[in-house]
């Protein structure tokens, strides 16, 4: 198996930060706010590896820092410190030292992101087909007919009625917006996909459909994914390995079934025991 992503010692602090930030925050101290400088330690000293085609779950409560990880990797935020390397066959990208153009290149050609809030991933001013076309154009597809064809294919794949591809996403239900967002993220066949709470707030039946779709895509296209969720059911169904976070730290990681059936850390034991 080949490695696609390597993250080492990633930290992210919101605020001016001080030398005591990391020492005075964390799960043992039950806070992520530094008592000295009031900065928020969203993530500290996170390391992880991801292999091609693998799904990694990041689980934790609100404020545990789980979304911070993918936001940093997708360049929505800049880390305070740490390294991350993305492997693309024989090329390597040192993610946190790239310039804006290089970052854009990776987002346009290699990465996909699906946000909990479709407003972040979709352009609500243009049609759903247009949203996909936009991404295809950035990936250097120029022929109108080809773009239209590919957009139709993707929407069919994600079960969005293609008769409605010229409608604005605002006319769609939440589940459908989410599927357009997934279609858009997938348009360029990215080897690396980030999913941030993609099923949160959706009907159970819609959730199941989207999870099913994600799994099918992963098997068909061998896409590596990082799935951020607070939902144990989602990691159980999707992720081979899972990381548990609290107050910006990784407190436990392992095979997903092991995390759920034989959790080692007191916090994970409590979390798993309180699941419905």
């Amino acid at each position, binding site marked *: *198996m080949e490695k696609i992503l390597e993250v080492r010692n990633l930290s992210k602090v919101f605020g001016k930060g001080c030398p005591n930030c990391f020492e005075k925050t964390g799960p043992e101290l039950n806070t992520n706010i530094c008592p000295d400088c009031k900065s928020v330690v969203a993530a500290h000293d996170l390391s992880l590896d991801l*292999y091609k085609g*693998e799904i990694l779950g990041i689980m934790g409560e609100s404020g545990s820092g789980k979304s911070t990880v993918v936001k940093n990797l997708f360049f929505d935020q800049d880390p305070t410190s740490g390294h991350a390397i993305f492997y693309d066959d024989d090329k390597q990208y040192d993610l946190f030292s790239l310039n804006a153009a290089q970052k854009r290149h990776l987002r346009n050609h290699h990465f996909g992101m699906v946000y909990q809030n479709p407003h972040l991933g979709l352009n609500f001013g243009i049609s759903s087909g247009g949203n996909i076309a936009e991404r295809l154009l950035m990936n250097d597809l120029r022929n109108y007919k080809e773009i239209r064809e590919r957009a139709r294919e993707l929407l069919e794949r994600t079960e969005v009625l293609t008769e409605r591809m010229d409608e604005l996403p605002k006319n769609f239900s939440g589940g459908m917006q989410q599927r357009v967002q997934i279609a858009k993220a997938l348009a360029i066949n990215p080897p690396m996909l980030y999913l941030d709470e993609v099923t949160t707030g959706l009907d159970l*039946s819609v959730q*199941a*459909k989207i*999870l*099913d779709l994600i*799994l099918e895509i992963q*098997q068909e296209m061998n896409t590596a994914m990082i799935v951020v969720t607070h939902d144990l059911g989602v990691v*159980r*169904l999707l992720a*081979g*390995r899972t990381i548990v976070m609290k107050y910006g730290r990784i407190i436990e990681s*392992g*095979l997903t*079934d*092991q995390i759920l*059936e*034989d959790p*080692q*850390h*007191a916090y994970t*034991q*409590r979390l798993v*025991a309180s699941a419905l």
Partner: protein
Amino acid sequence: MTAEPILSVEGFSKHFELHEQAKTIPSSSNVNFDVYAGKLTALIGPTGAGKSSVLKGIYRTYLPSSGRITYHAANGTSLNLALADEHQILELRSREIGFVTQFLHALPRQSTEDVVAQPLYQRGVSREQGRQKAREVLANLNIPERLWGVPPATFSGGEKQRVNLARGLIAKPRLLLLDEPTASLDPTTTDRVVEMIQAMKAEGTAMLAIFHHPDLVERLADNVVTLTPPVALNNKEVTS
């Protein structure tokens, strides 16, 4: 036996540390046995003897507390499953080691064919081929054809169990772990399962199984390992 075992378990123990209750619960202690290609090793013993814990420890659903689990892989290398890297375990699970539990966990809304074919999809087999193979196995296990396209959520206990078995058998693992695979099956279906297990043994699959009925142990087992419930670790209880 002269052949080299595929799996050797030496001094395996498992206990659970429950932090909230400040307790240590022993589950299995000092378990030793070997499993051979084409043979079935049966684990027997009363409830609470830690039989399932041994299977889960080998599959790494549980983290073994101590002991060595040596697995000889198809590529000629051997590794200690108790300590192996998670990616190695995932790779073995998708290529070589199968586990049929008493309960069926599947994606909601997925058709039975697709549930059964999952292990094949994971190996990159196409949907079409996977479903084709799934239908064969389902037919073999007496699952009526009208159920193949339906999700197994509403199936009876026995039907669910057969779906679970079908999924475990379809990929023909080198090592198959079976946890009471026939617990809620009628005699006719049980006979079918016995035939299928025998056929897999004949093809060289190594098996480690827990059976509810002594009769099945008699019919299928080549080696029998008796486990006894571990002594409570009174002195080791954590006090907080």
